[in-house]
């Protein structure tokens, strides 16, 4: 797995140390009391024989304290996931450079990367004290994943070559996952935030909601209001990987460092409390059981401004979500000392804050002819004064940039990132004249051959990304200088998506991922994402349907998609990276999408007394920060 996601980030050191004999075994005082009182088994019975040993980045910690964070709006459940961590079979190294063991102790892969044998930790337990074994994974694969009532269609990440993943139990701590075809990226896929399903559901608890194990499940269904069938009942009680109900049942056993208490997280929540899992299976290098911090306290604020206010009042102990922005930065710095917090840098893993996806499959032939003309796209790109936008909208932070991996990444392609970013309106005018759009109307707007003025109508979701509106207003001025009209309208998010999916857009604006995670988020260089590869939605349909729907892509894109299929199956990392280099080079030559600037790094707040928090960490959904920096090693200094 090495090299695949290499990011050179200072401040993060390797956090996992391979098996090391843990001698001095420590545990939280409250747990020790319970052991003494006989209400909890002793530590050695709660830990697996081979717990994961984690090296804190600063120092060995002490037990106690509460970390306070805030959720925004009502539906912000992924904030839990990002702090508690997706405790899947594998996870990211803290510097986002490679995939390392997590729930699995180790693994082996067969020759062609179609079979993965995972060795689990012997003696590991769920948060209610019941053993975690291969049976739990078998329960997922046999009774859920391959059950058509539960998953009428299996999640895409567990399907290769049209066949759903199968499993074979070798012994209680060994299980083999089997695919119909090579799946070289599977281990990486397992480290992504929503790939936790194989180890999400505890069989001993969840089987009561499954007809294969509980013949009377229909009685339970009938007794539960609003529940109509057993999958609904199962999901209501055992949770889904990406839904609030995962955090609403305090009785549900988990493998997480902290577990919800009381009512958990519901629409009515104003405060969610989580307590340490006494059976958590990670220890520090001195053998002390993690986590150090006793409780997590999650306030719920409807408005992001209220979270910012809580932060500057010193009521937030570690958070970047919803408050880290360039606009907020002066306020955060101003109040740091008074409120007793420090700032940590969240290095964006994204490539560009705003990419312009010209619609290469536009329904109007004239507009399509314009937008698929590479010279026109070059003209539109160099007519934008990116420095001015950076100065006004991005507070001077950033660099003119198109798309693709960032310079510190192994896959960096200078052409893809930096071509045509120079500001040259005169040359842009010349290019457009030469391209045959030299007629203008009375207002100086260039005309299509039919005599219609060239005016783009573009939507942006103003609530989510107001900075795109600001940028578009400036671009409107820049493009007016080359005789191109632009009307930008803010719309509600679902309207924005609906129009994009209906292929009704001239172009779409959206952030471009893939700065530090280019292979995980290739949607800007490959037409693979039906809700984000806006430059050619019908191409994505063609690809995903195997050619039966949508529109056949350009030759270049077809070649790239073929390379991508090879990449997914490729087990050899060097070869895999080579395939992606080819994809990037072809995308750079085609120049389908243009961008404005690097996504700027922002600052989150961390309590000045909290230790083991890195000064800088990557921020991305694929690296669901801050979980990979191991919040269970955070502790309060005296």
């Amino acid at each position, binding site marked *: 797995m090495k090299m695949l996601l290499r990011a050179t980030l200072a401040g993060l050191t390797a956090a996992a140390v391979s098996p090391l004999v843990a001698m001095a075994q420590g545990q939280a005082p409250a747990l020790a009391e319970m052991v003494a009182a006989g209400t909890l088994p002793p530590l050695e019975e709660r830990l697996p024989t081979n717990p994961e040993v984690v090296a804190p980045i600063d120092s060995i910690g002490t037990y106690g304290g509460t970390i306070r964070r805030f959720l925004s709006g009502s539906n912000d459940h992924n904030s839990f996931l990002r702090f508690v961590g997706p405790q899947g079979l594998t996870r990211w190294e803290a510097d986002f450079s490679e995939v390392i063991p997590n729930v699995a102790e180790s693994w082996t892969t067969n020759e062609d990367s179609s079979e993965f044998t995972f060795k689990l930790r012997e003696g590991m337990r769920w948060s209610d004290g019941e053993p975690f074994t291969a049976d739990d994974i078998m329960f997922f694969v046999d009774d859920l994943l391959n059950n058509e009532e539960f998953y009428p269609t299996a999640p895409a990440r567990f399907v290769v070559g049209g066949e759903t993943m199968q499993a074979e139990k070798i012994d209680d701590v060994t299980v083999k996952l089997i695919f119909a075809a090579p799946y070289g990226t599977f281990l990486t896929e397992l480290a992504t935030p929503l790939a936790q399903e194989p180890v999400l559901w505890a069989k001993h608890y969840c089987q009561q909601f499954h007809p294969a194990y509980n013949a009377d499940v229909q009685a339970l269904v009938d007794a539960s209001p609003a529940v109509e069938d057993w999958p609904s009942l199962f999901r209501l009680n055992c949770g889904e990987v990406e839904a609030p109900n995962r955090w609403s049942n305090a009785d549900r056993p988990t493998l997480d460092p902290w577990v919800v208490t009381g009512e958990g997280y519901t629409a009515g929540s104003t405060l969610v409390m989580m307590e340490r899992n006494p059976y958590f299976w990670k220890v520090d290098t001195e053998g002390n059981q993690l986590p150090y911090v006793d409780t997590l306290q999650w306030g719920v604020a409807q408005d992001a*401004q209220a979270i*910012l*206010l809580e932060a*500057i009042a010193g009521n937030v102990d570690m958070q970047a979500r919803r408050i880290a922005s*360039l*606009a*907020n*930065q*002066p*306020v955060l*710095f*101003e109040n740091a000392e008074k409120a007793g917090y420090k700032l940590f840098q969240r290095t964006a893993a994204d490539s560009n804050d705003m990419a312009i996806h010209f619609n290469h499959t536009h329904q109007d032939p004239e507009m399509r002819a314009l937008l698929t003309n590479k010279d026109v796209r070059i003209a539109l790109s160099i007519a934008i004064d990116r420095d*001015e936008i950076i*100065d*006004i*909208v991005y*507070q*001077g*932070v950033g660099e003119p940039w198109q798309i693709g991996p960032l310079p510190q990444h192994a896959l960096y392609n200078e052409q893809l990132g930096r071509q045509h970013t120079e500001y040259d309106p005169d040359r842009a005018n010349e290019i457009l004249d030469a391209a045959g759009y030299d007629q203008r109307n009375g207002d100086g707007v260039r005309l299509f051959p039919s005599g219609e003025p060239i005016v783009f*109508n573009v*939507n942006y979701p*103003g*609530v989510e990304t107001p900075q795109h*509106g*600001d940028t578009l*207003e*400036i671009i409107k*001025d820049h493009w007016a200088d080359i005789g191109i009209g632009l*009307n*930008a*309208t*803010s*719309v*509600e998010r679902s*309207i924005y998506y609906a*129009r994009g999916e209906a292929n009704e857009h001239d172009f779409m604006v959206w952030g471009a991922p893939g700065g530090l995670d280019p292979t995980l988020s290739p949607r800007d260089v490959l037409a693979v994402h039906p809700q984000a590869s806006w430059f050619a939605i019908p191409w994505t349909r063609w690809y995903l349907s195997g050619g039966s729907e949508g529109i056949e892509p350009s030759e270049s894109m077809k070649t790239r998609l073929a390379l991508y299929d090879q990449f997914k199956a490729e087990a050899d990392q060097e070869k895999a990276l080579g395939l992606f280099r080819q994809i990037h080079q072809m995308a750079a030559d085609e120049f389908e999408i243009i961008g404005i600037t690097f996504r700027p790094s922002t600052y989150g707040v961390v309590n000045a007394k909290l230790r083991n928090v890195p000064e800088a960490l990557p921020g991305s959904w694929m690296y669901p920060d801050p979980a990979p920096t191991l919040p269970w090693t955070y502790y309060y200094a005296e």
Partner: protein
Amino acid sequence: MTDERASGPPGAAGVAPQAAIGHSERDVAIASQWQLTRWAFRRHKLALVSLWVIGALYLLSIFAEVVSPFDPTQQNRRAVYHPPQMIHFIDRTEEGIRLRPYVYEMDRQRDQRTLAVTYVPSGEKTYLAFFGRGDAYKLWGLFPAERHLLVPVNPRDGFYLFGADRLGRDMFSRVIYGTRISMSIGLVGVAISLVLGVVLGGVSGFYGGRVDVLIQRLIEFVLSLPTIPIWLALAAALPPDWPIYQQYFVITLIVSLVGWTELGRVVRGRFLAMKNEDFVIAARLDGASEWRIIWRHMLPSLSSHIIASLTLAIPLMILAETGLSFLGLGLTPPAISWGVLLKEAQNIVSISQAPWLFVPGGFVVLAVLAFNFLGDGLRDAADPYGH
């Protein structure tokens, strides 16, 4: 059925001495309703002042292009979060004292770490000119012009009476353009309310019986629906690529929904009370058609009340517009209204770094106050025989 909720006092006939102070008893006796109203209104000082304020606001909106020194959408990288500037008139230079308007030029400095922006005087003065040349515009979309009330002599200089926003756009110009939209939304909205309210309220009050019950139920029905989903549904029905003026019309329609039920109740109450007045009965006995009775006899005697109610409805609509914008359901940038401006200012950063962004809030308060006092004055005055 009970209907006396908060309706105004019954319009009793007879001479009320207070209304006629300053006028002889004979004047009062023969004065028309309008004269009486005017006399009574003049006594209401706050209402008079409010009338002037409202007049000034509408004047500003009519001549927004001339009054505002800059294009309200023009960003300026050198003026991000520029603080407000004071205009000076007495210019002491080496050549002596001269009388001409100027402001002190400010230079932007940005802390690279905290990104805080500060402005320091550069020592230069920016001279201003009345009716100088500035950005070209078309007055009311018709007449091309480039003169503005007060602009920098050198068009490339900045001048920020109310400061500038996060993109360096001149807040003064934005507020003036916002005044145009917000003040007219109130006016147009009230016109729609008026039609709905008078027609339905009038019919309900005049005919009574089943029609009355039906319309009353309708009003109750509309009142009992929570407003948020109505707003949301209507706002969502707005096609995204509609030009701003069409969006504007829909928003106006939405805010007018806020007002018509109340107006309908008032009109109905008055009609009910008036139906049995002598002059209506006389007209009916005279053989006048119902339509004629309503239009010629009843409505005119109601008009002062209606005007008062309308005046009180306008501020509610102005506030409704700001509320809609806050929820993201109202006008959206690049349209400029007070609501849009306040929505943009609604954050901690603005409070702590650029409090001048709340100037539009001052305008909202001013306009709403003025309309309320005017409405109160009108209502007191509309009852010349009252007290």
